């Protein structure tokens, strides 16, 4: 009995760098602007840090890196708050998806997603790696 061809896994990487001062100028201490970009959880985390804007910039970079790793930008009805950085008890960041981004991930077969963040006084950097399942082409299928 023929078996179905195994699905192939595809890896995509996304990186982003954000200037801390630029992020601070754009969102500032305006709560409504901040809420356009960050979830309540993210804001609570950042506001609890001494270098609040470094952490905000790192989270903005993470959102961008994730969308780049998806092969899309913030162009398809996605909101920045659809990509949330949450921290495990160890401090390690991970990504939680919501809304249109979560729908996109499900539709296109996202299997795994990882993120790494780093920041200095001036710059915040994020790298995301995504793993997608893609059905293998059936060599027996007629065209």
């Amino acid at each position, binding site marked *: 009995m023929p078996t179905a061809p195994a699905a192939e896994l595809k890896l995509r990487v996304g990186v982003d760098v954000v200037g801390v001062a*630029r*992020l601070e100028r*754009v969102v500032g201490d305006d709560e409504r602007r901040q809420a*356009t970009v960050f979830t309540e959880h993210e804001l609570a985390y950042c506001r609890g840090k001494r270098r609040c804007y470094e952490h905000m910039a790192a989270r903005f970079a993470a959102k*961008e890196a994730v969308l780049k790793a998806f092969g899309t*930008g*913030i*162009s*398809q009805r996605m*909101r920045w708050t659809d990509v949330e950085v949450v921290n495990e008890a160890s401090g390690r960041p991970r990504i939680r998806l919501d809304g249109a981004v979560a729908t996109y991930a499900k539709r296109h077969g996202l299997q795994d997603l990882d993120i790494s963040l780093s920041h200095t006084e001036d710059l915040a950097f994020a790298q995301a790696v995504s793993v997608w399942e893609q059905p293998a082409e059936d060599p027996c299928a007629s065209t």
Partner: protein
Amino acid sequence: MADVDSAVREAVVEALALDDDEVTPESTLMEDLGAESIDLLDILFRIEKGTGVKIEASDLGDYIQGGIPDDEFSDDNQIISAKGAEQLHKVMPQTDPSELEGKLNADEVMTLFTVQNLVDMVKGRADGAGG
């Protein structure tokens, strides 16, 4: 309300730190002017401050896609359909549907969005808000 054309132009010039003569109505925000996501956020906040019209980044996608479901706007490989290309021509009249259908990746749609397209969107929002 401030003149929308001027307010949008000023927002773009200031957010991207450009000279005034570098920005034309035909300039594409991302390709020609080099705007990235944080710049887009900055531009939209500045437009709101200048005109009172609030637009979120996700609204751009809604506006461009015009309510067409994802699976009708593009195929499984993210390539724009005939229906998608017609919609793009409505909001970006400078585009030629025959050049986009079956060729353009949905991820690339924003690269075609010009300063004039943004002006038109803001004006539409302002009119819709009764302003």
